[in-house]
């Protein structure tokens, strides 16, 4: 095996239209920021799939791990009072 790499990995996020959130669409290899952006354009927006692009080095992403998924998200499980349906609103006061 050689050391002739394709550069580091980058994650690509696209915004479809102004005002919409950026959504992860895939990843690619590039040597620097500018090339990552150009490669993202060529690879992920050949049919106007996006009008704005973020590229982020994959190594900069911090992710939760599936093994402790249960305990990590556990605090939200018993807090039904965070949802609107928890509350009783009398009839006749209109939509709330």
């Amino acid at each position, binding site marked *: 095996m050689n050391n002739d*790499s394709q550069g580091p*990995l980058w994650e690509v996020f696209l915004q479809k239209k102004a005002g919409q959130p950026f959504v992860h669409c895939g990843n690619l290899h590039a040597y620097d920021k500018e090339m990552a952006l150009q490669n993202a354009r060529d690879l992920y927006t050949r049919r106007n799939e996006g009008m704005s692009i973020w590229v982020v080095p994959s190594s900069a992403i911090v992710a939760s791990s599936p093994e402790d998924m249960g305990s990590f998200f556990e605090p939200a499980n018993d807090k039904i009072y965070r949802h609107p349906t928890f509350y009783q609103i009398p009839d006749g006061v209109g939509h709330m």
Partner: protein
Amino acid sequence: MGVINFEELFEAKLAKNEMIEPKDWMPDNYRKHLIRQISQHAHSEIVGMLPEGNWITRAPSLRSKLVLLAKVQDEGGHGLYLYTAAESLGTSRDEMLDALHTGKAKYSSIFNYPTLTWADVGAVGWLVDGAAIMNQVMLQRTSYGPYARAMVRICKEESFHQRQGYELMTHLAFGTPAQKEMAQDALNRWWYPTLMMFGPPDVESPNSENAIKWRIKRETNDQLRQRFVNQSMPQIDYLGLTVPDPNLKWNEEKQGFDFSEPNWAEFKNVIKGNGPCNKERLASRNKSHNEGAWVREAAMAFAKKQNENYQAA
């Protein structure tokens, strides 16, 4: 809380039709199977650029040249989506490219056949991409998340590939007698190699059982092949062309066509490296990779220097 049984968790996810993601626990053999399948798929996209790329400079009109360029560029993109999907399982781009360039890795046997005439460009888009789509539509629901998501994107892009191929075939089939003959000749040569794309018959397909069990594949080779023949026949009839198979006929009982199996000895021989273009394809890939080495080196050196300047400033 008891000890988590990862294997049970994995099986439960499959049973619920949930996807497996890169950081999830998975059996070693599942991982190995996927790395092999996804990297072979990626290699097929990349090597698949060669037979059609061969015609870009000789396309008969500006329109057809633009179309062919766009299609071949898409295939390059498909290869890149798939390489990163395989990388998420722990292999590296270098490792995969190395396996391709040294001839260790396999790719779809179809790309070891030559594109002799302009009609072959039509037949490849229509039949070869058509067969690939049939397989890839199924893989949109494969159990490994990154692979499934790459397939969704790929399928969206593929449909123009098949349509442009069929459009090209209609021009030839309804053109001069010489053009029609060219179309028929292309169909004759591509028919059986296309049927081989779905892989060996179910009874002798070594990897199928696990692939179905793990929901990597959801239909068998023979099921997909039958569906492809059923779908293709009306398209062939419309062109006024015929398949090179005297046994092909409608079977009312199974509501599908009966057809002859391709020559599986030829299939094995092509996979072993003895097809008409194996050596040429491998040589082209190596040439292009080696001649691009200076570009990668320069880009790497430039990025390194920029980084140093950034840190110094």
